[in-house]
């Protein structure tokens, strides 16, 4: 078993385990911590997929930004004590069945899929190339994304502003 294989299975186990942790945990803070585990594992998997830049971005933006945002969201919305937010049993039951069925279906499709065995290509994933693609082929989505971020910034600030004093 090569190092890559070992690394993959370790990371896959970490990602899957953390995701499962998210499912099981009832405490919202634990869920966020489990999400951190999944995000980190996925970032490391990106390294394995030789998408180094993406891995760094995943760590910086997701683990460093989005997750912090989520934790802040938890902080400001969890001041009500004694509020138990357990899933309803019926829903959990139906959800489990549906999700298991879905997973089984997906795996069945994946295993039967006629993937012609292709040797993994090594995409030259230098930051320069990504940058050129972003400002070349993907210039329009790139600019749209920047507009979107601006809109989000304004929208989020507007939504979260303190209620006006009457």
């Amino acid at each position, binding site marked *: 078993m090569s190092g890559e294989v070992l690394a993959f299975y370790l990371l896959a186990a970490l990602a899957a385990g953390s995701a499962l942790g998210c499912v099981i945990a009832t405490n919202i803070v634990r869920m966020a911590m489990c999400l951190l585990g999944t995000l980190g594992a996925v970032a490391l998997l990106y390294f394995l997929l030789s998408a180094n830049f993406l891995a760094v971005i995943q760590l910086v933006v997701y683990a460093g930004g989005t997750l912090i945002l989520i934790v802040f969201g938890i902080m400001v919305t969890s001041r009500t004590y004694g509020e138990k937010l357990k899933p309803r049993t019926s829903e959990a039951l139906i959800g489990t069945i549906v999700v298991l069925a879905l997973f089984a279906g997906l795996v*069945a499709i994946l295993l039967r899929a006629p993937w012609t065995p292709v040797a993994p290509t090594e995409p030259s994933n230098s930051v320069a190339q990504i940058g050129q693609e972003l400002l070349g082929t993907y210039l329009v989505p790139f600019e749209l994304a920047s507009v979107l971020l601006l809109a989000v910034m304004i929208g989020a600030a507007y939504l979260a502003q303190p209620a006006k004093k009457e």
Partner: protein
Amino acid sequence: MSTIELLLVTGVLLPLASFVLLAFVGSKLGKPASGWVAVLAMAASCVLAAVALMQWQGLDAAGRAAARSAPVLWATLGGMPIKFGVNLDSLTLIMFFMVTFVSTWIFVFSVGYMAGHSDEIDGVSKFHRFFTYLSLFGFSMLLLVIADSLLLLFIAWELVGVCSYLLIGYYFHKKSASDAGIKAFVTNRVGDFGFIIGLGMVVLFLGDLSLAGAAERFHHEFTAGGPLFSRTFCGLSLATWMGMLLFCGAIGKSAQFPLHVWLPDAMEGPTPVSALIHAATMVAAGVYLTARIFVLLTPEAQQFVAIIGCITLTLAALVAIVQTDIKKVLAYSTISQLGYMMLAMGVGAWIAALFHLLAHAFFKALMFLGSGQVIEGCHHEQDIRKMGGLIRKMPVTGLTFLVGVLAIAGAGIPALWMPNHMKLGLGGYFSKDEILAVAWHRVYGENHGENEVAAGAEIQNPKSKIENATVGTPPPEPRPLSPLLFWIPVLMAYVTPFYMMRCWWLTFMGKPRDRHVHEHAHESPLMYVPLVVLALGTFVSSYYLFRPLVAAAAPHPFLTASYDGAAAEAAEAHATMISHGAHAALATRVGLAFVVGFVLAWLIYRKGLAVGEKLAAALKPVYTVLVHKFYFDELYGLVLIGGTMALNAVSYAFDKFVVDGLVNLAAFVTERLSWFSGMIVDQGVVDGAVNGVGRGTWSLGGLVRSPQVGRIRNYILFAATGVAVVVVWIAFV
């Protein structure tokens, strides 16, 4: 990046840093501190500029060329590289120094000026806001000065426009101020529109937005006879149109006819802003732009520039005679002086135009700050008819203001009557003299060939000092211009000293005409220190400091030499104009214009307003036209607003009679038709069906309603179930 470039870039970024700092923590810094931050940043920029200037002076031509580094590629758009860099030459450095120096002292003055003004809006002090804008203004102007590409220049250009809008409308709770801000902005947009089209033509025909690259392509285009020159539109070549359109931007920014209307209204801003706009930044930007695009101007376009300048300087000088608001007099004098600069550009006196710009920056800043001091001291009284005798109350202001008046009037002793043609005078004297000399040369030069021979010995800037000197073919003789382009400016050179002296005399001399205003008059040190510094600067900004630097930056001779010889001719004309001939011709015509103007003003106003009022009554029609500023505002109001209203009336009539008629007809027909269908068809046939459908929908809705639990999670669950069913179907069935 060479040291000099590094110094300049740092100098540009410092005001930006100050802007960012003040924008975010300005309110925390409080009242005087935030002002001093801006002053400090600008002063540091000024020191950097001075160091850069000194280093530059120490370099020879090769060293100067080596100091320029290649511009940085910023983006490639449609195959056209967009590069940004520092346009390093003597003009940039001297402009940079002038802007930072004048701005620094205006900022210092502002700290004193704004301290005495209410700056609270809704009970919150907005003191820092003023200096935030000032810093941004400084940054934009400095960026404009160092920009080496038309695109970067345009960006800075628009920033300058925005800042002027913000600052003119600084007292935005005052209707007139916010109106003036909007007017300035909109009027500038009109000019910028032409500028944008011009830029588009540059991109289309030259494909290079960098100043040097565009000039080179332009020249190539000319020698190759490209479409820019072979195609014409309305009888003028596209190249001419391009130059004229680019110049439109300068018309707006530099308040040239016919877009000059915004500048007098811009007086609504705080006085330091007026000083900044009039001296160092905004209006200078237009002249600077014209200087930078000079190599892209064909002779026809240059003539256009000259004519615009000539019209502007005449209108503004005449209107200035009858203004009674001290700031408005200065505003119109600025417009007039800008007209002189544009005229100079148009007749090919590139060097003289910029020389005048630099000299003007000093004395106009001086006079505006002086007027600010007067207004501040007289409790916001701006009417010079109510002043008088202030020299005893504010001696420093009065005397420094007089220096400015002398400088703008062109006071000096003509070389003709001095031994060895020594020159003695204030900055404005030399620059105005030079502009007129070049104009004279262009009009009459061909008849005075013998003078040019004599000129050879007296060239102040030997060719080796001219950067980028390339030996070109001898230029063809420039075509003669209309004599009006010489005689009108000469005539106005008599008017300028008259209205300036009138303004000064009414303000500072004679008997106090309003006791209340006079009693409270005072001056404060924080405000008059800048005055003294700028007055000294006005003395120093003479021939020997600025002019050689400007001359060294004159555009590539070869670019224009083989075309029309504008630049080479500028160099040649420059040689000529310091010749005895041109100056002798001038000395006898305008050499003592300032004396005549001063004496005339003194004769009329020495006893107060009485004589002036009698004259105004005697010349009522002329006076009325001048007081109404040639009815430009009214004309624009009539044409633009009236035009819009007329269009409204037409479209209203169309609406009322044609569209409404059709609609009413259709309505009538529909009404009849609906009566028929309503009574017969609907009630009987359709209603039954509709009610049936309604009832069916109702019961169906009740059925579907039950899963609408209103819980998003359950909706997700439904969707997931759907997906799962599909996937399982694909996988196992």
